[in-house]
């Protein structure tokens, strides 16, 4: 592990890392120039060959997604970049945007060239003020340097990049919610099909990609598909649908650790390695009770599951929803899972967009039930009720339009399954490991 050289984060914390000058000095925009000399389809094939899977959470193969665009479409085709990083404890995109915005912009330029899009929209969550300022300045620099605009480098390729600041809602990170929001509407996810690649932004074919994915695209152009494939985990031979988990990945470490932060590592590192080798271990000499593998919508790893590799398949094998955003949150053994779960439920009840009945009412109900349990008024049958409600909502059973509901239900199902005895004990003894803080008690 000591030999691993970060690439995505290589320029982080260097002086003036946001400026075009230093970026160019470090070889910036050479990949874009290289791409302009290639046929767009070759760029797509290169990304396909690299095995790059989307970094936003679902892990859909990026190159494959690009090929879903209609052939010979007269245009316009749009690229929408999802910078609405709103999964709790996730900040890998933020670091890229704040510290190395040009890396992201170069990836955007390359991707637009590949999919023949002349316009990219960056949808940025409102809370990211620094990212906004860094990206805004970087975009202006690119226009001034002729990297964006008309007929770039005499190639005949035009590109406009629009930076759009959202109004802060978790649902805007859902790709069709993001598109609706970009169109100026309420961010209610759309019914699929049609998928955005067929009918997306302004009813035109649209590719929605994550910020980190764009940085990976830039690195793949610079270093080649083989380089990217030299890292990570190959496909599981027993799973014909597994596309493998290649490349470097930004892992966020937060919660009860000594050294929280964002680290770049090859795909497939375990949660234990992240905590012990990169996060400085669990704080106060305590032990981890549970670890969120990639944003709270993915569920929990129990203490015995910490050796699970954090690639696209690993968390799923131990009952989590998936890798998600690869942002681990460590929960120490002094923390009540009732509190943890209550906080999760509160978040999703607050963020449910309210379009589909099961999610709108279910998330709020689960929040109310957990609030009651937390106040010591729970009954054991509440745990079954919570599981029933959680199982009834989401795109997996088919009862909602988007996956927010699955993400809201997963930690509930997961925690009750893996930590049921703790919940039972809490309910039966009225045991409160931590006195409920008044701030958390407010039921919205």
């Amino acid at each position, binding site marked *: 592990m000591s030999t691993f050289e970060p690439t995505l984060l290589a320029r982080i914390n260097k002086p003036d890392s946001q400026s075009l000058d230093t970026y160019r000095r470090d070889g910036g925009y050479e990949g874009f120039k290289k791409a302009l000399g290639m046929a767009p389809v070759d760029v797509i094939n290169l990304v396909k060959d690299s095995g790059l899977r989307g970094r936003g959470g679902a892990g859909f193969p990026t190159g494959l997604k690009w090929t879903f665009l209609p052939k010979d479409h007269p245009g316009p085709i749009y690229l929408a970049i999802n910078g609405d990083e709103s999964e709790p404890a996730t900040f890998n995109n933020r670091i890229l945007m704040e510290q190395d915005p040009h890396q992201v912009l170069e990836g955007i330029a390359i991707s637009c060239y590949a999919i023949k899009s002349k316009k990219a929209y960056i949808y940025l969550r409102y809370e990211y003020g620094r990212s906004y300022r860094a990206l805004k300045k970087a975009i202006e620099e690119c226009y001034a340097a002729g990297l964006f605009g008309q007929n770039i480098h005499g190639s005949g390729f035009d590109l406009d990049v629009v930076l759009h600041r959202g109004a802060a809602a978790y649902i805007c990170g859902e790709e069709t919610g993001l598109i609706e929001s970009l169109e100026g509407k309420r961010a209610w996810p759309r019914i699929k099909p049609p998928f955005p690649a067929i009918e997306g932004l302004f009813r035109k074919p649209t590719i929605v990609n994550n910020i980190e994915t764009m940085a990976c695209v830039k690195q793949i152009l610079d270093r080649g598909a083989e380089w990217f494939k030299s890292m990570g985990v190959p496909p599981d031979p027993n799973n014909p649908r597994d596309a493998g988990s290649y490349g470097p990945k930004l892992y966020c470490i937060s919660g009860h650790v000594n050294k929280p932060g964002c680290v770049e590592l090859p795909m497939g590192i375990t949660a234990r390695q992240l905590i012990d080798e990169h996060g400085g271990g669990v704080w106060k000499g305590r032990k981890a009770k549970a670890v969120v593998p990639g944003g709270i919508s993915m569920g929990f790893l129990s203490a015995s599951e910490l050796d699970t590799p954090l690639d696209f398949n690993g968390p799923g094998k131990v009952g989590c929803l998936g890798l998600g955003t690869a942002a681990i949150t460590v929960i120490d053994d002094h923390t009540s899972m009732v509190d943890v779960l209550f906080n999760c439920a509160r978040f999703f009840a607050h963020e449910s967009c309210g379009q589909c009945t099961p999610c709108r009412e279910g998330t709020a109900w689960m929040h109310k039930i957990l609030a009651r349990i937390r106040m010591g008024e729970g009954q054991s049958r509440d745990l079954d009720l919570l599981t029933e409600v959680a199982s009834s909502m989401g795109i997996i*059973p088919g009862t909602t339009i988007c996956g927010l509901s699955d993400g809201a239900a997963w930690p509930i199902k997961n925690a009750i399954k893996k930590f049921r005895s703790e919940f039972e004990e809490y309910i039966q003894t009225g045991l409160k490991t931590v006195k409920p803080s008044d701030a958390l008690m407010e039921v919205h």
Partner: protein
Amino acid sequence: MPTVIVNNKPVEIGPSEKLNCIQAAERAGDTIPSYCWHHDLSVVASCRMCLVEVGEKKPDGTIAMQPKLSPGCQTPVKDGTVIVSNSEKVLAAQKATLEYLLLNHPLDCPVCDQAGECGLQDYSYKYGRGYSRLQEPKNIKPDKDYIGDQITLFTDRCIMCTRCVRFTREISGTAEMQVISRGSHEEIDIFPGEPCNNKLAGNVVDLCPVGALCSKDFLYQQRVWWLKSKNSVCPGCSTGCSITVDQNEDVLYRLKPRENPQAQGSFMCDEGRFGWKYAQSDRRLTSPEQRSGGKTISRDWDVVLSTLGTTLADLSDQKSGTFVVAISPWATVEEAYLLAKFAKEVNPNARLALGPVRTVGEDDLYPKDIHGQPSLPTKFTIRAEKCPNRRGVESILNHFQGEIIPFSSVLYDIESGSIETLFVLGGDPEGWISDADAAKLDKLKLLIVQDLLGSAASSKAHFVLPGAAWAEKDGTFVNHNGLAQAIHRGLRGPEGSRPDGRILFELSGRRGLFHAASLRKEIGSQIPELAALSVGDLGEFGVSLSSAAKTEPQPVG
């Protein structure tokens, strides 16, 4: 023919028909419950009431079912589509959805206007679980008593189907309504300072599947199970919206649009919806009168009618043009026929004219764009011609008179003194004659007014015959498009008034009772232009007068 299998029952659909699972199941006689879906609005698939299992029957006969539930509204059917709406999985999903919808619902059915015709009540009985497992307090949302002049919102009853929002965006185009807040705190609201007062606003109350949006006009007036409904046609303009007339104990409480793709579609305008109050006003004529020299001679129907009959019979030797009958476009086809035929029998030289045709402005087309201009495709039209049956009356006049004589020329002839006797069959509630025009009637030797409301003409008539409002009589209206629809007697008029058909039936000395369907057969057999009426019973959706229009679907609006 493409075949869809609904709960093991094969059902054929048209080769080019685009149906969703709900519609296909309806063909098979099965109901898939739904709230947010409405065939005239866009599909949002958000209420999740219509979840079904969907699969496909392969050519080799095997059936592959999708593992997850699908919303029936959003899933189109094609040949071989398999729909299962009664499996345990589906029933469990329906139960779950209803439990969610009722979590924060106040269950105030005893004081709710919608009770009795409420989607939540009906589905809860049919598909729900019967009790709630919610132990926590319900969300309480503030009621909004001003969504519009006619609309109030009981916010906590709302199930967020967004039909109302979509209606104002897609049908009226006025977009006053929106969803505010998020998650279970969501509420329907209007944009600040933009009340829902468009001319189609009342439809959002009908579209609301629960008791959230209520009509202020109808609020707390009646329990709906007391109401008796009759199919009718709105007389407000020549669009001829199919409606129901809801009454109890001869008091009219509300009109509701009745879906008719051949007429207006699914909706009606507020002018029609709330414009019927005249029918129950104290301006109604409630007593027949025979007057002479400014004195009332009789108020007895039998005396008035028989005196009028003999008076008119004396006109048989009058010369051409001195006896004129004006038939209002508010009269039914049957009334126009009876009067026209009677007049020509009394005096073959009698002239038949069309009563005043009231038009206001221009046709009002919906949806509107952001500038208030109509945008295509048109989804609803409020017509400028504010009468229900000009085409029907004109067909009668064409047959008996051979031409359409406008009322203006009748007035001109009265002024010039060439008319001695005028029989007016009225019905327009807006006052069909001005005081100035009424003054011209002083020149007449004999004026007979059969009308609904008192007017400047009725006050100087020698014979006044109080007729009935459209909701109080049977008959036929022909709309702008040549669609003949039956109106049915929903309630009795005020004491003293009589249905116009009955009055004219008796005046013509016909035997028996006025019966609209029999008269239609008679009219259809005698007047080629109205041959389509010979079926007698026009059915729920009416009959198009032109056979060509019968086969081709008529544009909605």
